[in-house]
C-alpha cells in the first residue's frame, strides 16, 4: 500500500511520489464507483496541483532529509503506532457493527456521478456554497501573497521605528505614546 510508504520512506521526495501514487489509486476507486467528476477532480487538484506544490517546496527548501537519523522503534513511536492501531480497530468495528450485511447499491443510477448531475446540483441547490468556495480561494490567494511578500518589503525599507523601540529607554517610550 502506497500510504504506508509515505510514512516510512526516509526521503521526503519519495514520500511525495508515493502520495501521488496513493491519490491516483483513489481516483481509480472513484471511477470504479462511477463518480467520474470526483475522479477527474482528484487527479487535477490533488495529483496535479497539490503534489506538485509540495514537491516544489521540498526541492526549494532542500528538505529531502529532514530526519538525518531516522529513529524508529523508540518507545514514543511504538506508543503512537499502538494508538493508531487502536483507532483503526475502533473504526473497523464501528463499520462492521453498523453495516453487517452487504449494502445494495444496485438501485443507484449509473450516471449518478456524471459531470452533468453534479454540476446541476452545484449550480442550483448549492450555489451559495459554491460562491463561498470561490471567496475562500480568493482569500487564500491574498493570504499567500501577503505572507510571501510582506517580510521582504520590510527588509528593503530597513528596520521600522517599532523595531528600534527596545533600544530607547523606558521613560522616553512613555513620552512617545
Amino acid at each position: 500500500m502506497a500510504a504506508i510508504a509515505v510514512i516510512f520512506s526516509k526521503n521526503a521526495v519519495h514520500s511525495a511520489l508515493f502520495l501521488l501514487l496513493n491519490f491516483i489509486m483513489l481516483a481509480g476507486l472513484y471511477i470504479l464507483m462511477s463518480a467520474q467528476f470526483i475522479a477527474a477532480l482528484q487527479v487535477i487538484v490533488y495529483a496535479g496541483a497539490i503534489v506538485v506544490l509540495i514537491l516544489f517546496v521540498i526541492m526549494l527548501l532542500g528538505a529531502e532529509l529532514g530526519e538525518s537519523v531516522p529513529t524508529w522503534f523508540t518507545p514514543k513511536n511504538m506508543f503512537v503506532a499502538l494508538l493508531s492501531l487502536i483507532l483503526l480497530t475502533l473504526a473497523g468495528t464501528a463499520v462492521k457493527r453498523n453495516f453487517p450485511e452487504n449494502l445494495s447499491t444496485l438501485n443507484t443510477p449509473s450516471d449518478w456521478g456524471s459531470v452533468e448531475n453534479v454540476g446541476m446540483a452545484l449550480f442550483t441547490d448549492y450555489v451559495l456554497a459554491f460562491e463561498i468556495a470561490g471567496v475562500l480561494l480568493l482569500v487564500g490567494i491574498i493570504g499567500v501573497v501577503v505572507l510571501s511578500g510582506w517580510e521582504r518589503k520590510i527588509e528593503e525599507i530597513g528596520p521600522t521605528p517599532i523595531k528600534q523601540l527596545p533600544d530607547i529607554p523606558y521613560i522616553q517610550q512613555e513620552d512617545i505614546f
Partner: protein
Amino acid sequence: MEHIPTTWYLLLAAILFSIGAGGVLIRRNTLVIFMCVEMMMNAANLTFVAFAREFGSTTGQVFVFMVMTVAAVEVAIGLAILVELYRHVKSVNIDSFDSLKG
C-alpha cells in the same frame, strides 16, 4: 460490473485515516506531516463518496468538492507559512518551531 459493497470502502477509508494519523504523530518533517494531513482528508472524501453512492445522491459529491477547495487553500497557505518559517529557523523539523516570537 460487479458492485463492491460500501463496507469495504469504509474500511479502506478507516485504514487510510489511521495511517495518516500515525504519520502525523510519528514523523518530524513538517512537509511529510502535511502529506499525512492530505491523506486523512482523502480518507474523509472516500467515505463521502461511498455514502453518496450508497444513497444515490449528489450531495456527498458537492461536499467532496468543498473539501478539495479547502485542501488546496490550506496547502497553499501552509506551504507559504512553512517557507517563511524556514527563512527564520533554517529547518523543517517541527520540534524547532517552538517559539512564537520567531
